[in-house]
């Protein structure tokens, strides 16, 4: 039996105003959504913030879920939208910070990262789209069709991104294995 067999039912009850269904959805989906965010940001604080923001957005647009349709891609589509927005904001902020750094010209050591997991480091060489696809396929365990729905793309495009991602990971991991003999290692 698929783990999210009755997500659709819970979602329908959530739309009807059932608070138990809302709580069940939050407690059931939050761990995997959290991992989705952690895989991109690598920061626990960021992943927590993004998770909260996602649930608030889900709550606001819960009427857009069509009863009977797969619920998991609907949740991930919104989570991905929140992540992309956050990514854009962080790029703007980091650009501003870089400008400030250039002005002050003070040499500071980078702050120790509160890296939540190794997955973010492992997926770092991939593009955001490839990361999304791989995380949904291999970590969240979604099907190609579900990933295509969640990423608003076609199954063909998902396959292509997954193929590219594997190619890059293979190169990275092979490099790491070769480097292991000289004391290096990614994981």
């Amino acid at each position: 039996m698929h783990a999210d067999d009755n997500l659709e039912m819970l979602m329908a009850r959530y739309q009807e105003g059932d608070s138990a269904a809302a709580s069940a959805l939050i407690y059931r989906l939050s761990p995997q959504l959290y991992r989705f965010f952690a895989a991109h940001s690598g920061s626990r604080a960021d992943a927590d913030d993004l998770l909260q923001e996602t649930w608030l957005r889900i709550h606001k647009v819960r009427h857009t879920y069509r009863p009977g349709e797969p619920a998991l891609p609907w949740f991930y589509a919104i989570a991905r939208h929140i992540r992309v927005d956050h990514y854009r904001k962080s790029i703007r902020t980091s650009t501003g910070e870089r400008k400030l750094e250039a002005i002050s010209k003070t040499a500071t050591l980078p702050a120790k990262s509160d890296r939540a997991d190794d997955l973010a480091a492992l997926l770092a060489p991939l593009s955001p789209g490839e990361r999304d696809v791989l995380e949904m396929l291999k970590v969240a365990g979604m099907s190609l069709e579900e990933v295509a729905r969640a990423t608003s793309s076609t199954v063909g495009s998902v396959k292509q991104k997954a193929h590219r991602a594997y190619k890059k990971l293979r190169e990275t991991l092979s490099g790491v294995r070769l480097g292991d003999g000289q004391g290096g290692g990614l994981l």
Partner: protein
Amino acid sequence: MKNNEIDGVLKAAQAPHGPEPETLKRVTESIRDSLQPVRPLPPRWVLTGGLILICAAVALAGAARAGFFGIGRMNPWERVLIFSALGIFIVLAAKEYVNAMIPGSRRRVSAGALLGIGTLVLIGVFAVSFRDYRTDHFISAGITCLLTGLLHAVPAALLSWLLLRRGFAVNAVSAGLAAGTLAGLAGVGVLELHCSNFQAAHVLLWHTAVVPLSAAGGALFVWVLRLLQRSSS
């Protein structure tokens, strides 16, 4: 390294922990406080049908005001070919727009690909239908038609936005592109019903241009709107 070995590395590397319990408690409480029943969006076919009706209504209203000279001058073969192609393009664009406004929808083609392929098909259909290769009043007559088409795309875009305003676009620019494409097709509909200038160059350039220009306008409008929203937040 094999794919299943990479899968194993990915599984082993994922975060061992979950979200903070306080975070989940906070989220649950804030949602519970504002939890009320909501009416789900209507079925996709209802929304798609609504968009098609809007396009047809705008095209017919526009042509009724300006006159049905174009369709009156066409032979039955041209009527069938042009309006079938336009109809199919409108149905596909309406479906694409509805999908763009419902998160997690199945997509068979992207909004950009639909625009590109649809425009090329329209060009092909026009090229087959119109064989008058003169270019009298090419610019002046062309600009008049282009503006007429784009002006009719505006009410079509507004009405379609009204119909889908409860939706949520996870990719707003793509939704804007789809909305603009659909609105542009309503504009082309007006031109095909009204314009009796059957010079191939005129139809191929000025009539067809309504669709990509309207689509670009839709995408640009949404992009600027989001930029303004971001800068104000």
